[in-house]
Every structure is written in C-alpha cells, then in structure tokens.
C-alpha cells in the first residue's frame, strides 16, 4: 500500500524549500521583522465565509480556535509597537478542500506601517516579480472589471438581484437559490470573472463593495464608498488579499457585528467578538496596510501544478 507516501513530488518539496528561503530573504532585505504568533487562540473571526476549527475543551477552560489567519495576533503586535512584521505560518479553514484549497494551508502575511493598500500592491507585485519572473501587472477597480467582463455595474443600486441572477444563469446555467447580493456577486466573481482573467497575467482587483470590507477601511471614490481592499490574481487564481487596515475601534466593532448578523441571516452559528483585538485597536493600531498571500497557491502557479496536493508534502487526503 502506498498510502504513506507524500502527495508532493521530490521536485515540489525542493521548490517549496527554495520559495520559503526566497520569501524570507525578500523581507529580511527590506527590514521587515519575522514573527511567530499562536496557532490556537481564544479569539476568532466572525467572517460568514469562513468555517473555523474549534477544539473540544475541558469545562473550566475557554474555547480555543485554530487560526484562520494570523491577522488578529499580528495586529496586536502592531498596536504594541512592533513596526513592520511578516509571518509564514499555517492557517486552517474547515471544509475548504479542492484543487485550489487545502483546509490546512501555508500563509504569508505581512504588515507595513504608514502604508496604504496602493503602496502594498506595488510590494506584492515586486514580490511576485521576484518569485515568478512575472512582467508587469494591472489594477482593476471591482466595478470597472464587472463592467468590462460582464457588462453590468455591481455598485449601481438600480442593478437588481434579478438582473445579476440572469447574467449568472446565462453563463453557468443554474444558480443556487437564496443568494443575497454579496453572495451573488461572489458567484459572478468566482465562476464568470476568474476564468475570463486567467490569461491577463498579474491582476489586482481593488475598491470592493463597502459591504465586503471585512477589516478594511472604506474610502470614497467619486459618488460611492468602497472598501480599500485588493485581491491579487495570477492566471485566474486568487493569491493574495490585502487591506488598508481599519484602525477605528468603533468602526471595526460595527463591522464585526455586521458579519455576525450576516452569519445569522445565512443560518450560521454566531462567533464571539475578539475583544482583545478591539482592545488593541482602542489602544491604537498604527496606520498600516496588510496582506495575506497563499504560499501553496503561489508555489502551484510557479510550478504550473493544477492541484495543491502536488506541492503540499501531504495533501488533505493523505495527511
């Protein structure tokens, strides 16, 4: 029986070792400090799109969650005065298993003090240039990309749910019932836009709908408020997700509550609010921008692998 064997090839493992070294060198050369934070925390995220692993506990102990990203702990370091920091660590998301997903995956996350998301996008592009030998990159506001690819304005309140549903139906056949506006936009993004931009090289999508801000701040662009966020796609694969961070504790608290409300509307269990993160924000998170980049996907893109199992030593099914 060969079930004990790694799912990755020896070449894949060697390429991973090289990549990890190159990433560390990239940040070391730029004076960004490497940090480690706990994988098991008492706080977690309410994000309606993320299912967290919760550990069984003894009755007198608090719940512990496997981190879905090191965001909260790294922000607490920033609030305590760490300055620029990066981390390469494991993150965990229950149920996310597929060609481009592994429930346990490797994240590279870093924060730049006094930067905004535009400056951070440039650094992501430089990192991709160094790792992938990619040449050039484009920035597309979310709204403009929808207009370009699908011919619809996702930010216009006149654009009805029915109109968005029709577009999805015409492109992928049937559409699941009961999708709210953001879920429908997510469907269009993942099923209709991603395949279309797969030969566009390095693409940054920015200025997301304010309703999809997560922990990013919102800024006015012309007549609308947008989330100061970006996602980076290479060959149609989403590699990185960055924010110009929300520093206002009251705003952040409201955004976390809104995510819990969305969980409720989708029939999902509520998550505790991460009070230690909010306390750090009240103390003062410095102005900063942060980004999380999927190291496994980056390696898959670099090696042209179609399945993450090929470049993870033991993919989910063989772990």
């Amino acid at each position, binding site marked *: 029986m060969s079930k004990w064997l790694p799912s990755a090839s020896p070449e894949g493992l060697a390429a991973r070792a090289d990549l990890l070294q190159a990433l560390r060198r990239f940040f070391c050369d730029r004076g960004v400090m490497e940090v480690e934070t706990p994988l098991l925390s008492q706080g977690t995220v309410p994000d309606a*799109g993320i299912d967290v692993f919760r550990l069984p506990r003894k009755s007198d102990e608090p719940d512990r969650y496997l981190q879905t990203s090191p965001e909260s702990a790294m922000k607490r370091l920033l609030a305590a005065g760490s300055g620029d920091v990066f981390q390469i660590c494991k993150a965990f998301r229950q*149920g996310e298993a*597929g060609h481009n997903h592994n429930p346990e995956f490797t994240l590279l996350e870093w924060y730049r003090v006094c930067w905004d998301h535009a400056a951070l996008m440039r650094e992501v592009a430089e990192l991709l240039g160094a790792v992938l030998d990619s040449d050039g990159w484009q920035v597309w506001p979310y709204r403009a990309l929808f207009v370009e690819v699908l011919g619809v304005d996702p930010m216009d309140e006149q654009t009805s749910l029915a109109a968005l549903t029709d577009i999805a139906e015409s492109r*992928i056949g049937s559409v*699941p019932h009961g999708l709210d506006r953001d879920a429908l936009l*997510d469907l269009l993004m*993942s099923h209709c836009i991603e395949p279309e931009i797969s030969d566009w090289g390095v693409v940054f999508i920015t200025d997301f709908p304010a309703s999809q801000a997560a922990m990013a701040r919102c800024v006015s662009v012309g007549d609308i408020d947008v989330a100061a966020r970006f996602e980076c796609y290479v060959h149609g694969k989403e590699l990185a997700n960055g924010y110009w961070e929300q520093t206002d504790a009251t705003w952040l608290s409201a955004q976390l509550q809104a995510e819990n409300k969305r969980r409720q509307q989708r029939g999902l269990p509520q998550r505790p609010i991460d009070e230690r993160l909010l306390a750090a924000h009240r103390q003062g998170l410095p102005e900063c921008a942060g980004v999380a980049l999927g190291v496994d996907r980056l390696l898959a893109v670099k090696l042209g692998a179609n399945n993450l199992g090929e470049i993870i030593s033991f993919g989910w099914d063989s772990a």
Partner: protein
Amino acid sequence: MPNFSTNEFKPGLKVMLDGDPCSILENEFVKPGKGQAFNRVKLRNLKSGRVWERTFKSGDTLEGADVMDVDLEYSYTDGEFWHFMDPSTYEQYGADRDAVGEAEKWLKEQERYEITLYNGTPLAVTPPNFIELEITETDPGLKGDTAQGGSKPATLSTGAVVRVPLFITEGEVIRVDTRTGEYVSRASKS
C-alpha cells in the same frame, strides 16, 4: 433516504436532483478570496444519461437516491422487457427499452450485467467491458492478408456489427470491447 451535504458529494454518490436520480461525477470547491463558498458539481442523470453541471452553495444538501448496482444474469426478452435474474435468489427483474438502451446489442444469455436499480426497478444496464461473442455473418477472409491492417464488418450473435481483421471467419468467437465496440482478439477458446 438521508440527505447529503456538498462536502459529502463524492464521485459515485447517488442523489435526487429535479426529481431524477443522479450519480455524482465530480465535485469542485470554488471560493473567491473572501465571501461565499460554492461547489461546482458534475452529475450524471441516471434516467437520461445526460451530464449536468450545477453550482451549489457550500453546505446545501440533496436527498440521497435509492439507487444500487447489482450483478444480474440475462435470461431472455419478450420484446417489451429484457429479463434478468439474480443467480443467488432467482429473483427476476424486467428492464424496459429505456433501461437497456445501447446495451441491447451486447445481451447474451447467461452473461452477467451490472443493473442499476432505482427504487427496485432497473434503470440502466451496463455490459461487462469485454464480452465474447460468435460471428454469425461476415465475408470470407482472403488468404495472405493476415499481416495487413485491413478490416471488414462482421455481424455477431447478438446483432451487433463490429469491424474485424480480414482473416476472421464466420463461426469464430471473438472478444469485443463493449465500451468502444471494437474487436480485441480471437477468444481464447472457440
């Protein structure tokens, strides 16, 4: 039947969709950077044989279908139904023309076939990948043609017509790949 959630959709799982029993072929998890996760699923409609591609919200469920595959022996046809028998219980099952479909031309008495039962009724008949059948009609072979790649049509005992090498003669038993309808070799014993 129990319900199955998208994360239980494995190839081969039988579920009900739009009132028809379907078999899951592929299930791919799809998620944008943030936000709603989906499962893009390919299913074969077991009634029509057609492949459907559907997108589900992750966590959505489908009812399981009462579908199972059994090995049965072909007995005979009365023109309306093709009758199969469970060799251990002698229980009889009648498959209609829709269920037999393309398999009709490979039906040989006493041969075993995989029958897909839906609520206890045959829904589909799958022949074995290879089957040995006698040639009932073909033009005489030409001497000296054994090395050449030429071929000719031959009618088999079940009515199927396959292309065979020129040296094959009437009355011989040949081995055929039922998936492609192609001649494989002379049967080991004839």
